[in-house]
Structures are given as structure tokens and as C-alpha cells.
């Protein structure tokens, strides 16, 4: 585990916070888009297990995490203040695949990991930029980091379930419309129901579809075998070492429901 000092921890959108941690540059250098950190939320034993968060962005010697409050760990995390020290482990997991001519589909907090991808692809560091980002949330209030995302000059198409901003409906409707016109690789991250729909659409339009998956992790290091994702033909992948990004066609559908 490394230690990092919190330099930023503020509300960004409804229930969504942005956390900045100062980290020695030699560690930061290893970080790749799509990888994650495991953060020990406090020094006491409840919560016991560090929680995984995708690397959202990097600036100078600061790594940013974009997180949503869902339970005890994220709630405690949101109470930490500037100046406090966190323990974390990482980078863990595999980076995003290096795609060309692809679009991004993000639902809710699923947007988190793509910030770093945009940064790295803008700097032409092994990653290519997506052609469009489709980003959906339930309401306008739950959309986060829009101005940051737009900074990269790539179209960001918004949807909200209630129509309070952008297209009214699911982000997957917009994606389907797009693929109908120009079939292209999709990289998607969001709630299970969204990923399932993306997988269906990808299949329909015969495009390569990558899904960033989630499950409860214990170790994040391949030690416990707790993080399995069922694959087709009865096999299992281990999210923390084989993922979190998987090719949709390899995943067994039941793991998406």
C-alpha cells in the first residue's frame, strides 16, 4: 500500500464526488486508463476491505477519482477532508484495450474511467481518442464533469431519463441510432442493465463491444478468487486481473442481470 494526501474532495454532482490524492510521480507514471486503485477508507476496521475506484484523471502529481455515494465506504470517503492521508494500492487491473474508431457509452458513474482515457489520447500516449462520447444519467443533476469532458474537443452527447438535459431516454437509444448509421467499436461502462443492452445492440450491428464490468472485490490482486465473471462455456474470468474490461461476446449473459 502507498500513502497519499488528499488535496481535494468535493461534491461534483448529485451524490457524486471528486477526490484528488497527491501521489509520488514515480508511482503515477505507471497508471494507465482503465486501471483502478483500491482505497482503504479509514484506518479503523469498518469498512474492512479497501474499495476499488477507476482512475478518473491525472494532473501533475495528483490522481483524481470520481465516485458515487452508494454505501458505507463511499459515505465515509465523502467525509474525509483535505490534508488527510489515505492508503491505497494500485494500479490494478488491465488498461482499456487500445481501440481505434470507437465510441464510448457511459451510464451514470460509469463515466469515471473515461476522463483519463481522454487525457492520454489527447497526448497521443498509446491510446486513440473516441469519436463520440455518449453519456447518460437519470437527471441533469447527476451528470458530472461535463466541462472537463468537453475540453478535449470530442463530441459529448448527453441523455437523461427524464429529459432534463439532452436526449430524453436511455443513452443506449442514442448509441443504437449511431451504430445503425456507422457501425463501430463500442467501449461501455455503466450499470448492468445498460451493459446488457449495449451487448445486445453490439451483437445486432455486429460491432466489437467492450464492457467495463463491476463486482465486489476483496483483494484486487488475484489472491482470493472472489471476483469472478462468468464467461461463455462455463468458464470464469477474474475481474481484478483479467478485467475490468471484457469483450461482450465472451461474457455469459447471466452475469449482466
Amino acid at each position: 500500500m502507498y500513502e497519499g494526501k488528499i488535496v481535494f474532495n468535493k461534491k461534483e454532482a448529485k451524490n457524486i464526488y471528486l477526490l484528488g490524492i497527491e501521489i509520488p510521480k514515480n508511482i503515477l507514471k505507471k497508471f494507465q486508463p482503465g486501471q483502478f486503485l483500491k482505497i482503504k477508507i479509514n484506518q479503523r476496521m469498518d469498512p474492512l476491505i479497501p474499495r476499488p475506484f477507476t482512475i478518473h484523471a491525472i494532473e501533475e502529481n495528483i490522481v483524481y477519482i470520481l465516485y458515487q455515494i452508494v454505501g458505507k465506504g463511499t459515505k465515509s470517503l465523502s467525509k474525509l477532508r483535505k490534508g488527510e492521508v489515505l492508503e491505497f494500492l494500485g494500479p490494478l487491473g488491465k488498461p482499456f484495450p487500445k481501440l481505434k474508431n470507437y465510441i464510448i457509452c457511459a451510464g451514470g458513474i460509469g463515466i469515471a474511467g473515461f476522463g483519463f482515457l481522454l487525457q492520454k489520447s489527447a497526448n497521443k500516449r498509446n491510446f486513440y481518442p473516441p469519436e463520440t462520447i455518449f453519456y447518460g444519467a437519470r437527471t441533469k443533476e447527476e451528470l458530472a464533469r461535463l466541462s472537463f469532458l468537453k475540453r478535449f474537443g470530442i463530441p459529448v452527447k448527453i441523455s437523461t431519463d427524464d429529459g432534463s438535459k439532452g436526449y430524453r431516454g436511455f443513452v443506449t437509444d442514442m448509441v443504437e441510432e449511431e451504430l445503425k448509421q456507422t457501425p463501430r467499436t463500442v467501449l461501455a461502462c455503466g450499470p448492468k442493465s445498460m451493459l446488457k443492452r449495449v451487448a445486445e445492440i453490439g451483437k445486432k450491428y455486429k460491432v466489437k463491444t467492450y464492457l467495463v464490468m463491476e463486482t465486489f472485490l476483496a483483494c484486487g490482486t488475484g489472491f482470493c478468487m472472489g471476483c469472478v465473471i462468468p464467461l461463455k462455456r462455463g468458464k470464469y474470468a477474474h475481474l481484478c486481473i483479467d478485467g475490468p474490461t471484457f469483450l461482450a461476446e465472451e461474457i455469459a449473459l447471466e452475469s449482466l442481470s
Partner: protein
Amino acid sequence: MLASGTWGLGENLDNFFALKEIKENIGALVTKGVSVNPRKGNLPPRIFETPCGLINSIGIENPGIKEFKRNYLPRIKSYGVPVIVNLYGEEIEEFLELSQELRGEADGLELNISCPNVKKGGLFFSYDSKTVSKLVKEVREIWKDFLAVKLSPVGPVYEIAEICEKYGADAVVVANTYPALAVLEFKPLKILQGGLSGPAIKPLTLRLVYEISKKIRIPVIGCGGIVSGKDALEYLLCGAKAFQVGTANLIDPRVSIKIIKELRDLKNGLCCKSNSS
């Protein structure tokens, strides 16, 4: 010692340790449970956090003994510390076959008669003193090196400990996880049954170690909820001759280095008065 199931099969231990650190801090590596045939393990979810504890239901995912010997054991041995293979079987015959396969290949065996996460066999061994007698006796005939039995914390545990001693085990490991249940979703009800480990159970296993080490003369290896040097020292003071660290490895892969350092400091009396944890 690193406890079974909490550092994988050694595939990437050296991502987190220098070889020297392993040798200096880890007394032995106890492998994930290995069975005769490959096992895919249980359906997810396999893990759930409870107050100060962790429920797991992995289901002894492992490549089977043949593949283990071929592709995993050499690497684990290369770390340069004694290797104890944790054996999982549903029938006595399976344990015997496994012991046979490992003759000359490992430094010790740990018989897992206590996994709460597999439907058949496993846990029930630990309720049945006759089967355990037979098991230990027959493995002992095949396996001349270090032989430990890993007890379940539930069932007739004192009786089973005495049986292990009587039939020639060199040590007992006290203990495996506790049968537990978590509710994942209310409606429809979705539950996870598995074994509870971590700090929550430390006071329970510590009690077992204390009682069992008064009853038998072979060494008791303590295992349950150790996350600090202080925890380890408590086990040693309560009668354990050695200890294993499990769940803590999942929190921090390098925790054993921290534990050993804290334990040394405590033993050196540097901070004998501090009970803060």
C-alpha cells in the same frame, strides 16, 4: 505463514514482495486448497463484507493436482520458503491420492477438513470423528513429512483435535472460517452462505486456540483475524506455536511484513504497553 486461499497460488506474489522480503518475513506458504480434479469454484457473488469481517464462498477454485504440480508448484517453491499444500477432498481416497501425488514435492501438507463452502464432504468431515481418525491415520502412512490438519471452528472441535494428535498429525491449524450468512437482497431474497473470517472472529478463534493448546501437546497453529503484530502476539501468548494470516493479505498484500515488524517490536518490549489497535 500465509494462510490458504488468501494469496492465490503464488502467480503474482512477487509483484508485491522482493524475494528477500518473502524469506525474511514468511515462515511458510500454505497453498490454496488443491483437489484431485480441477474445480471451477462457486457461482458469484463469492464475497461479502460484514462488520469487521468477510464472508467468502469461493468453492475451492483450483486447477487440480496434476496441473498444480506442473504449472504452479515450481513457482511457489522458487520463493525459497517451506511450502505446505492445503489438500481438499470429499472422500478419504481423494486425500490419499493427493498425498501420494505430492510425495517428495512439498514440505508439508495441511488437510482441509473444514471448508464451509462446498456442498458435499468438506465441513462434514469435521463433525465426524471416526472419519477424521481414519483420514489422519491413512494419510500419515503415506506422508512422512510435516502433516497438519486444519480444523473447523464448529462441531466437536476438542475431540477432533485430540484425534489428530492421537493419529499422528504434527500440528493442528485452528481454525478455518465460521459458517455464516449474509442477506444480499431483500426482494426477492438473495443470500450468500459462506465462511466468516477477519477481525470479527479473532476473539472466538483465540478462545479455541487457548482451550485446545491446553488439551493437546502437538503444536497449535493459530489462524483467525490476525491483522497486526499485536494480534499475532495474542495468539502466541494464548498457546499458539505459530500463526497464519489470511484475510489481512486481501486488505494489503504486504501486510505480513508489517505484522512481523510489529511483532518483533512488541517482543523487544519497545511498545509492550500500547494496546491501541
